[in-house]
């Protein structure tokens, strides 16, 4: 019932926007939960929330091309993604999968073709979602990563100041002192999990700063974001409890509206506006009433926390994993610390924290000898483009002085190119500069645990052991 549910979504959004002045936002979202429940009883669910159970993934060479399904959320965890994507790049670079749990979709897997799709926003729309599957019903918040021009351009320009390089220059000192603090507090005598101790901790602190969110409650930002990006129906992630997601959204709406109102009051009392996201939104004519458009308001804040969370976190963990798989590169780095900036790009290429972005064809498009039909879903697999041997020499090798490391596609290209790219690079550069000051070695002592998702390529556990500087054996 696509049209019916579409109109329903529309009405929902308008209803919420219209009542937002009188009903607090979190109450509306709680109301929505019951509304959707009722709607499901009346119409049946749009697409049942799938639950994924891990099974061993077959060798890609035993499959017919049409049976290859790269939406499997365990492909990355089981280390099968490389042969799967290599076969698609070689034999079916524009590939159709009719029967995935997320519905039919096209995969684009070569660097050059991905660049074409990403650049061609006139042919391919980012609306209404950039993930393969559907978000929990009724929770399709509006974010500019999933908007086309001109709306995209207006919204992006109102918030991009928060991560503009000028702002970052101011923040570098803060980022450095926090990074030092976190590294100095790590256990030196026993193995520990790097992911919560360093990667999550540093990205969580950064997000709290960008939003000027109460510092002691920063873990909430990380938890909301994790559950949002980890929805089973959206990315094949481990979270399948829709009710809990509504509760999160309500919680988030409450916290963010409170933040907004507090700032408003402080400004009215004569306080100088800060450089945080909410102050910027309140300073811009286009967005100063954003609080009256709750789905958009939550959307843009969510975009920043989701955009800046998993991605940087998994690059922080991924760099360690890469160094341990390619120990010669760590030696090279210690001998040539000036390679850090290039190494940061190479880490981001090698890890590709977000596997893809999705588009919808706005008209029939010929690509790679195939006809993509108007309305079809098209997935640009950055993770594959970054390993395309047509573009990069020895693409699977991690090479910190790789000449064209910056040409990776992990940040996407075109008008949606990552807004936080410079912030991410800065955080990683500072992290490695501070690591080299303190440690001779960071050894990964167990096989890292990878997350369940077809979208986020990351780690839940990387057990490491530190060797402080000057204490190296022999």
């Amino acid at each position, binding site marked *: 019932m696509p049209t019916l549910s579409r109109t329903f979504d529309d009405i929902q959004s308008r209803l919420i926007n219209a009542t937002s002045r009188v009903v607090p936002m979190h109450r509306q979202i709680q109301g929505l939960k019951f509304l959707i429940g009722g709607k499901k009883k009346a119409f049946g669910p749009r697409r049942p929330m799938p639950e994924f159970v891990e099974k061993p993934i077959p060798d890609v060479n035993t499959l017919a091309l049409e049976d290859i399904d790269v939406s499997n959320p365990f492909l990355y965890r089981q280390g099968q993604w490389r042969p799967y994507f290599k076969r698609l790049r070689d034999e079916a670079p524009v590939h159709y999968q009719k029967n995935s749990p997320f519905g039919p979709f096209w995969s684009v897997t070569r660097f050059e073709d991905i*660049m074409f799709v990403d*650049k061609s926003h006139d042919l391919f729309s980012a609306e209404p979602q950039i993930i393969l599957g559907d978000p929990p019903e009724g929770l399709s918040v509006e974010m500019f990563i999933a908007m086309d*021009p001109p709306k995209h351009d207006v919204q992006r320009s109102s918030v991009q100041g928060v991560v*503009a390089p*000028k702002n970052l220059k101011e923040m570098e000192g803060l980022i450095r002192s926090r990074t030092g603090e976190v590294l100095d507090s790590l256990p030196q005598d026993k193995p520990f999990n790097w992911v919560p101790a360093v990667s999550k901790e540093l990205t969580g602190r950064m997000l709290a700063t960008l939003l000027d969110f109460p510092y002691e409650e920063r873990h909430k930002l990380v938890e909301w974001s994790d559950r949002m990006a980890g929805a089973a129906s959206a990315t094949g992630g481990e979270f399948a409890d829709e009710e809990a997601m509504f509760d999160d959204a309500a919680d988030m709406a409450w916290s963010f509206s409170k933040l907004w109102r507090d700032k408003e009051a402080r400004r009215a009392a004569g306080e100088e506006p800060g450089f945080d996201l909410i102050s910027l939104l309140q300073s811009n004519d286009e967005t100063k009433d954003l609080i009256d458009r709750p789905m958009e308001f939550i959307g843009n804040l969510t975009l920043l926390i989701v955009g800046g969370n998993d991605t940087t976190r998994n690059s922080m963990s991924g760099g360690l994993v890469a160094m341990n798989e390619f120990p010669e590169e760590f030696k090279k780095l210690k001998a040539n610390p000036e390679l850090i900036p290039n190494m940061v790009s190479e880490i981001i290429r090698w890890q590709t924290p977000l596997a893809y972005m999705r588009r919808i064809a706005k008209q029939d498009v010929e690509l790679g000898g195939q006809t993509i039909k108007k309305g079809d879903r098209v997935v640009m697999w950055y993770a594959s483009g970054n390993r395309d041997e047509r573009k990069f020499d020895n693409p699977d090798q991690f090479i910190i002085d790789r000449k064209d490391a910056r040409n990776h596609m992990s940040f996407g*290209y075109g008008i949606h190119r990552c807004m936080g790219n410079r912030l991410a690079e800065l955080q990683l550069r500072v992290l490695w500069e501070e690591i080299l000051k303190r440690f001779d070695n960071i050894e990964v002592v167990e096989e890292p645990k990878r997350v369940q998702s077809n979208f986020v390529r990351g780690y839940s556990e990387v057990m490491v052991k530190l060797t402080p500087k000057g204490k190296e054996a022999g």
Partner: protein
Amino acid sequence: MGKITFIENDQTVHVAEFEAGSSVRQIAVDNAIPGIDGDCGGECACGTCHVIVSEGWFSKTGTLGGEEEQMLSMTPERTSTSRLGCQVVLTDEMDGMTVHLPEFQM
């Protein structure tokens, strides 16, 4: 053969030679001029080859395309003579041109 001058934001000057037909980005990358990244390889898709053309020279650099306009509009340091280096193809007319680099690339 012509000459083009790049002036970094800290006023460091670099002079480079070019053959007509190359792009400003290509010359910058070939000569390792700091401050131009050119991440997308000249596809007008990253905005990291931003240059600010000196007043007198701007009209010689041709007209901005729609895509270029859109990418430039996302750059906070954009000025009225901003161009993306990969979209400016050098001609003999541009011999002697000076371009300034922004403080940051997006």
